[in-house]
């Protein structure tokens, strides 16, 4: 690699593992949110749709931010 990071590779490995754990937790949260929303929608309760969609979007933005941070570490 020709770049020089502010963190050594070993440190970035640890950071990547930590980010991986957080991303997995967020995705499990999204999975729960998705199944709960599906259950509500199939039961005709649509009041939850907007909050659930926004919450899921926030989770996605968080995940994108974490990946962005990981790439940023390599610069």
């Amino acid at each position, binding site marked *: 690699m020709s770049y020089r990071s502010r963190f050594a590779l070993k440190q970035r490995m640890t950071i990547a593992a930590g980010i991986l754990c957080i*991303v997995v937790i967020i995705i499990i949260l*999204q*999975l729960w949110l998705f199944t709960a929303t599906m259950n509500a929608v199939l*039961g*005709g309760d649509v009041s939850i749709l907007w909050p659930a*969609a926004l919450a899921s979007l926030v*989770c996605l933005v968080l995940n994108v931010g974490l990946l962005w941070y990981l790439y940023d570490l390599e610069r």
Partner: protein
Amino acid sequence: MTNQTSEQWTVPPDGQPPENQPHWRQDFPIDWPQDQYVFRREFIKFLLLTSGAFTAGQFWFLVQRLWQRGQAALPSQEIAQVNDMPIGGSKLFQYPQGSPARLLVRVNEATFVAYEQQCTHLTCPVIPAVDEGELHCPCHEGVFDLLSGHPISGPPRRPLARVKLEVRDGKVYATGLEERTI
């Protein structure tokens, strides 16, 4: 291969020194820690697709809802003649036309109930057991209350969608559909 920096940290997987490695590995060295790091990063990137898919699914529900909101309310539809339905008898019908099957049951002289026939667990068709006051799902032993459509036992957690009924002039009409979570 032996010239190691913090960013080029080549360690063979067997941990042996470079001179003990086979020729092919000396000719084509792999930076294993770097490889593992890239794998973790790419795995996170892949997980992002999953995250995006869940978000897309949530917004798909929203789009469906907005689409349904634009459609007209269900019309009133004749589904049976009162005289054709014996007490304890049942009849399948579609409401609205083209929809999944609904189940009309005559509980007693004056009481009719109608529900979506699909079990709320895994959409197996439910079977009325009027004498027991229940609707049975044979697939996973789900049981619903005949009068309310609420689950009594088994895996279903949601009540059956109820078809609103109206009896007039010796005929039974379906007038609407009520989906419920509790």
